[in-house]
């Protein structure tokens, strides 16, 4: 069986993991265009070679990042997402004025 080294739980059978898509930089949702956001949500680069991906260890619900070679299917490195994502991102809903709040 293929073994994935989990940064939290150590080496485990690949059946304990779920693939979570490629890691890509998120554009600012408040400032970007619809086309930029759609590109971020729907389009994947899918290169032949080095890839950086989200993976989930099912038994501990732990998300981490794995770097793989997509051609040879060799896992190069796995690490905690805090190496890349250092600050919390909050999605504040834009303030809307409804007709009830603002009777004209």
């Amino acid at each position, binding site marked *: 069986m293929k073994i994935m080294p989990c940064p939290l*739980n150590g080496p485990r*059978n690949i059946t304990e993991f779920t693939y979570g898509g490629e890691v890509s930089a998120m554009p600012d949702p408040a400032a970007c265009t619809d086309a930029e956001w759609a590109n971020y949500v729907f389009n994947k680069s899918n290169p032949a070679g080095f890839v950086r991906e989200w993976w989930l260890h099912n*038994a*501990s619900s732990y998300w981490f990042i794995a770097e793989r070679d997509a051609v040879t299917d060799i896992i190069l490195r796995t690490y905690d997402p805090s190496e890349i994502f250092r600050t919390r991102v909050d999605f504040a809903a834009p303030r809307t004025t409804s007709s009830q709040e603002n009777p004209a």
Partner: protein
Amino acid sequence: MTATSPARHRERAPLDHAGASFLDIGHAVLVDRYRETESIDACALADLTNLPRLGLRGRAAAERLIAEGFRLPEAPNRLVRAASGEALLRLSQSEYLLLGSPADKGASVRALESGLPNAGENGLYTLPRQDSHAWFWLGGPRRFEVMAKLCGVDLSPAAFAGDGVAQTSVARINAIVANDDQGSGAFHLLFDRPSAVYFWDALLDAMQEFGGKPVGFTAVTKGI
């Protein structure tokens, strides 16, 4: 006097344990014994699902547990047993699982849970684990051989720490396996509650070749 039965309380375990005698622990019942005399010779399985437990997560989780008098495991996937009998598991950098003590039948963990916020106030998230997880106890000297049949991680004493915790797949379901080597030693198995009936049968089947049997709470407390 009427005999204690699971039907006396609203909280029930997934397994009915028909034919057993029960012990009332206030909010629910535990199996007291299945047979007249029970001993843990080779391996034994007990259902502790109704014993209180609690999860804590967030920046302030460690601080709060220290304030409650607990010593924390130094690294993720380790366990520390408190003097009062609770087992404290560290599941990640900032997530903890506290298993109620058999000595006070989980009363202090239950009291702690009722005093905690439940909506992430000040970086402390309470994770209710009573209804999400079931809790089995696997004791006896041949428990390592039983687990070797069901689990891909090497849990033998030579390879696995006496205070180790493995979050892994056991008998094809996700489970938390906590090695509690104090006293006679045992594995605590915590897993998705709806899988309890399947997992109970799978464990008993694996234990059969070693002569393993289910035991009640009285036999468990003798072994601690």
